[in-house]
């Protein structure tokens, strides 16, 4: 396989917890991302799913180099992004872009759409000479399905879905290679969500983009992703192709998560076996020893408290298509239920 465009190795991001007003003492760390590794290939979409607090948005921040990591490396086209300085870093800023969740707060209300989408050119003037910028912005608006004549309007004159399109146009302005989508459709209504998902799909084909697609909605992630990583408390529980994760999950957390998704079909009511997890996600300040999921897991034994299960392939000699790394001592497919 070709060299991955983005490769993440043992990425760790801990935030210190401080108390005290004048003399601040560090009393602990929020282990937001705690040893995450994956590869993103060219033209691929890697979905990252997980519940709130699992570290998926912190992951996005670190991948964007908005936050320095505690340790670990992220290589973009063969170079560690945390070693980059000067011109190289500027170039990286062009190549990796982000689309944020909330189209209401991520656009400056005092700037026109033209200024918002054109602002990246102020910082990277080499991409579009001043004279052609207005035209370029109009092209971008057209690409994302907005009326190019609306270039002088303000964000409040647009609906939520249209605002998300503005955010996507801004991310596309510098012709990036990778776009990190952090919950890009979760603030949108169902009918609008579908429009934006279609747009992201079209743009990927048209511009050969690679996506890291972060979301908590499992059906949205499934629809767009080639491969999927499931996160729990700062770690990847299971990673594999979309089919292997959704059809043959082996980690109990993935199994529970998938079973809990309500299915929009009343005919299946009561016919699906739903795994009910007890309790809430533990605090990332003081995660459980060993396997982090053990406090809510029905398979947990003493081994799970003592030894942390590594994210590895657990070969059982079956179908190679289904084989994928899973971080569970007792990883095994669940007898199939209606899904």
């Amino acid at each position, binding site marked *: 396989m070709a060299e991955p465009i983005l490769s993440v190795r043992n990425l760790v991001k801990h935030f210190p917890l401080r108390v005290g007003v004048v003399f601040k003492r560090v009393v602990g760390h929020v282990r937001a991302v705690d040893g995450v590794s994956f590869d993103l290939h060219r033209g691929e979409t890697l979905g990252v799913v997980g519940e709130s607090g699992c570290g998926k948005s912190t992951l996005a921040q670190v991948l964007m180099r908005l936050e320095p990591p505690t340790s670990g490396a992220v290589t973009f086209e063969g170079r560690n992004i945390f070693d980059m300085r000067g011109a190289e870093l500027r170039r990286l800023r062009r190549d990796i872009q982000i689309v944020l969740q909330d189209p209401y707060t991520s656009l400056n209300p005092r700037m026109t759409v033209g200024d918002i989408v054109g602002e990246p050119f102020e910082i990277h003037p080499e991409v579009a000479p001043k004279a052609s910028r207005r035209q370029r912005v109009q092209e971008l608006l057209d690409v994302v399905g907005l009326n190019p004549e609306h270039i002088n309007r303000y964000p409040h004159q647009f609906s939520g879905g249209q605002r998300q399109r503005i955010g996507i146009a801004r991310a596309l302005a510098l012709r990036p290679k990778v776009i990190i989508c952090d919950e890009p459709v979760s603030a949108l209504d169902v*009918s609008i969500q579908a429009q934006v998902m279609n747009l992201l799909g079209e743009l990927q084909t048209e511009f050969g983009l690679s996506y890291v697609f972060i979301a908590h909605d499992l059906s949205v992630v499934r629809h767009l992703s080639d491969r999927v990583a499931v996160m729990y408390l700062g770690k990847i529980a299971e990673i594999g192709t979309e089919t292997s994760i959704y059809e043959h999950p082996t980690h109990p957390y993935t199994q529970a998560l998938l079973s809990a998704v309500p299915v929009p079909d009343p005919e299946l009511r009561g016919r699906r076996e739903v795994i009910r997890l007890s309790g809430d996600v533990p605090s990332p300040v003081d995660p459980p020893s060993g396997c982090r999921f053990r406090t809510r897991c029905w398979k947990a034994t003493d081994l799970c408290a003592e030894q942390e299960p590594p994210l590895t392939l657990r070969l059982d000699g079956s179908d190679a298509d289904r084989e994928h790394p899973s971080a569970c001592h007792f990883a095994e497919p669940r007898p199939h239920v209606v899904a």
Partner: protein
Amino acid sequence: MSASMSRVDDQPLLVVSDLQVEFRTSDGVAKVLNGVSYHVDAGETMAVLGESGSGKSVTAQTIMGILDTPPAHVTGGSVRFHGEDLLTVSPERRREVRGSGIAMIFQDALSALNPVFTIGFQIAEQLRLRQGMTRREARRRTIELLDLVRIPHAARRVDEYPHEFSGGMRQRAMIAMSLALDPEVLIADEPTTALDVTVQAQIMDLLKEIQDERQMGLILITHDLGVVAEVADRIAVMYAGRIVEEADARSLYRRPAHPYTEALLDSIPRLDLKGQQLRTIRGTPPSLLNVPPGCPFHPRCPRAAEPCRTTLPTRVALGVGRASACHFAEEVVSRG
């Protein structure tokens, strides 16, 4: 009478009919509700499905009598609870019904709870004020309620503040609060939207269980087609301040009778459509300040024809408990 009123002799528990609400703003008058009618019976789950701005929450707030006036003005219709029109009774009577007759839980538990009082105080307050309990009695009952909604170590956590609870726990506390006065109807406005899927499943289970036990009528307001499919008995679909379709859950998903419902169901990502374009609804919901003439859905409707542009469709009854506000309802429902 509309098709939703299938029974004549004994009235359903709560009947909303022809509700009209407008918001008078500096930009003009927004007709937020244009004749909304639905009903809910004891032990029944009525789901109100709609996108943002469709008026589903405003209907709930009108039922509860917690609309902010101004800008909101109720200009017509009735809300009959046990036959008594709550829109015409005295404010004192309204307060009596609120909480003990009809209670409500909100989407965002963190902003619905007061951060400076303990969870226990906020639940006990209504028991003391409304049922005249002593502090000690109220505290005991509060702990029972927290136990009922399965908050672990209820006796200890009763003295904690909202910020010390996780999202799921806060939602449980709010359910406990809404149950304190033993309401007959519970309105749940997007009760699980802010929660993760695994917690969402726990909360929906809990609501279902409590409802079965107490034979409460439940009005579930949501935009989530998955949640509705799991719990609803009947569904009302709202669009631009109107109910465009009403049906039992199975019929609605199997054979929608309104193009909007049809399109909504089509826009859910589905397994068999992986990698393909999702079917979308073109355009965006209309501004309520400027609702299109004729059928408000016609600019986005794939089936729109001449009458849709000029004439507002009336509700067409399609068998028992089914109705659709579309000129072509019969065609839509009989499509394959």
